[in-house]
């Protein structure tokens, strides 16, 4: 039982969940700041929020939700030993991740083009609340983007191991944990989206 070499699924999953908690709290720090500053600058935040590209935001939300679905299905698929479907679904997930990042790239270059980026002259000159809003926006979304990148890579590795057969219906805890991580990335976006694109 207490032998380290023995594979302990519940253990591995428990560990993963604990790690997800830390990720959650990491972002909560930024949400905390968001809340505090929203309470102080409701109008500047509203004004800045309207400047955001709702289109990109909504599109990316849909994309992430879909990717979440695909990876969740991948878990079901591997449980049913359907290797090809698993691979397809994982491929789909990673593709979504890529598209998501591409959209972010477009969105950011658009904003930077408008002279909106941390410490930009426009913001330094503008009303205090806006500079705070965009500062938070770039940090939060940037950090989230980093997580998308990591998650995408993780799932790619998992996919390769599925192909090699080291992950299979009998031992797929890697895939499951990879999926959990990906869901977390989705989860955080679910909150980022309304806070930055929709508030007021």
């Amino acid at each position, binding site marked *: *039982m207490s032998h380290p070499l023995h594979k302990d*699924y*519940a*253990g591995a*999953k*428990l560990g993963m*969940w*604990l790690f997800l*908690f830390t990720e*959650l*709290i990491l972002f*909560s*720090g930024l*949400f*905390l700041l968001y*809340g*505090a500053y*929203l*309470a*102080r600058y*409701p109008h500047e935040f509203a004004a800045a929020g309207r400047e955001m590209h*709702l289109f990109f935001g*909504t599109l990316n*939300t*849909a994309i992430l*939700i*879909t990717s*979440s*679905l695909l*990876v*969740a*299905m991948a*878990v*079901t698929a591997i*449980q*049913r030993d359907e290797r090809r479907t698993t691979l397809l679904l994982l491929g789909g997930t990673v593709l979504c991740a890529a598209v998501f990042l591409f959209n972010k790239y477009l969105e950011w270059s658009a904003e930077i083009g408008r002279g909106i980026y941390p410490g930009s002259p426009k913001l330094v000159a503008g009303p205090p609340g806006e500079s705070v809003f965009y500062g938070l926006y770039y940090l939060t979304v940037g950090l989230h983007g980093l997580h998308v990148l990591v998650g995408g890579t993780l799932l790619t590795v998992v996919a390769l191991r599925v192909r090699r057969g080291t992950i299979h219906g009998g031992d797929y*805890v890697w895939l*499951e944990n990879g*999926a*959990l991580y990906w*869901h977390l990335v*989705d*989860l955080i976006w*679910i*909150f980022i*989206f*309304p*806070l930055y694109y*929709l*508030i*007021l």
Partner: protein
Amino acid sequence: MTKDAQDNTAHSIGYGKLTAVWLGLLCLTALTVWVSRLDLGIGHVWGSLAIASTKAGLVIAFFMHMRYEGRLLRLLLFVALLTLAIFIGFTFFDVLYR
């Protein structure tokens, strides 16, 4: 083997159910965008947060299998969320009363 963490990794959820959840999430997304067009003043914040939380709940319960996990994981998740709430909530003892 100790009782407090049971191995029930094996539970699997059908494609149909997952797709249903997915549709639900998309509808909620549409809903939250629509709500944000209405003119509710500060109500937006709570409105969209409520919807977001529902979405999060769906993802955790089904996509992340929490609905089928043992008591332990649910308890721990609760502890984590509680801590999160405290960290943010207690800061507002300062922010709101300055």
